[in-house]
């Protein structure tokens, strides 16, 4: 009888030990993240550039725009009756591409990229600068159906995901500059720059 009692106690003790050994702790750490990557940060419109022939174009939303150059500007002066939008002469940081690339990487469903503010002012007006965001891959949608003056709204939403925006989303960013045949350019010429603040947030 005594031996059976000892065996029973040993069995109960082992069961109790087994339960302890079956207890696990599972720790999950998933930080929320919001990442912004840009390649181009410098768009140059150089109407004194002599390296281009004046026939180079950039397709923006399916429409070709002539790159800014001396030859293109002279052709504009010769024939224009109103305004013409020009593409940049060159971009810094794109490896030769005629557009900037903006990448949003996030595990958040909702996010927005907008032009939050503009620093500086151009003699011809900041409204001469137009922006166009084109979706390449990923989530969300562009708010610019056509090249839109950067002063059209403040802030100006470029593209966003209202829901399901998780993952890596890639957009091309084009800027254009509008010349008007009636512009009276100062004798010293115009060498100016503005800074556009690109803002990413998840509400």
């Amino acid at each position, binding site marked *: 009888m005594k031996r059976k009692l000892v065996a029973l106690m040993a069995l109960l003790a082992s069961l109790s030990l087994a339960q302890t050994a079956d207890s696990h702790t599972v720790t999950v750490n998933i930080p*929320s993240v919001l*990442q912004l990557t840009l390649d181009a940060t410098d768009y140059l419109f150089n109407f004194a550039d002599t390296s281009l022939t004046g026939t180079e174009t950039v397709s923006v939303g399916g429409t070709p725009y002539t790159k800014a150059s001396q030859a293109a500007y002279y052709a504009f002066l010769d024939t224009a009756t109103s305004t013409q939008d020009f593409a940049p002469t060159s971009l810094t940081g794109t490896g030769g591409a005629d557009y900037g690339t903006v990448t949003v990487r996030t595990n958040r469903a909702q996010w927005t990229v907008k032009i939050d503010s503009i620093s500086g002012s151009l003699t011809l007006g900041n409204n001469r600068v137009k922006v166009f965001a084109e979706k390449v891959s990923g989530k969300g949608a562009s708010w610019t159906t056509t090249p839109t003056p950067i002063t059209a709204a403040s802030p100006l939403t470029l593209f966003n995901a209202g829901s399901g925006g998780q993952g890596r989303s890639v957009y091309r960013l084009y800027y254009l500059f509008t010349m008007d045949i009636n512009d009276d350019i100062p004798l010293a010429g115009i060498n100016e720059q503005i800074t556009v603040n690109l803002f990413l947030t*998840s509400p």
Partner: protein
Amino acid sequence: MKRPLVALTGLLLAQALAQVNLALSPARLELVLPPGGEVTEVVRLTNGLDREEPLSVALRPFALTPQGDVAESPERNLCPHLTVTPTAFTVPPRGTAEVRLTMKAPPGAEGTLACLVVFTAGPRPTGLGGLRITASPSLGLAVYLTLRGTERPALRAKVGGEGKALPLLPSPLAGKPRERPPKGHGGGPGL
């Protein structure tokens, strides 16, 4: 084998070309405190480039629009009760910087207060001559603080109409996040 190699080369090239590569974690903060309570949270900024990235911090009051956008608003402003340390700092190359956010729940306030913490990098260096457009990138951290015991509903709705199916009529507070603007609209509401 050739395709992954091309993809990897493209990825590495894109990394090499990037002028800005900034990540914010967490992407937003939602906190609950009793009136008069205080809490400190740490936010991490990561720089994916091989050069250092100086950042400055600014606070902006905001509210969510019915469309789910962030819009500047002085109402329900958390910013006076939020302290950020440091307010200017440099993220090392391929490194991370930590920022501490201390929030004090103001006594007497109700519901949810909000503040946008904006991290802005300086404009990138440019060349000379011509008309130039340069970019300065920002990341915004939405911070929400709800005062415990004073919560307000995020959605108000009532049943209305006639017939077998009675539709829910949302109040002005309600609304779905919007992904596209109305046709012909170049810009949208927001901050």
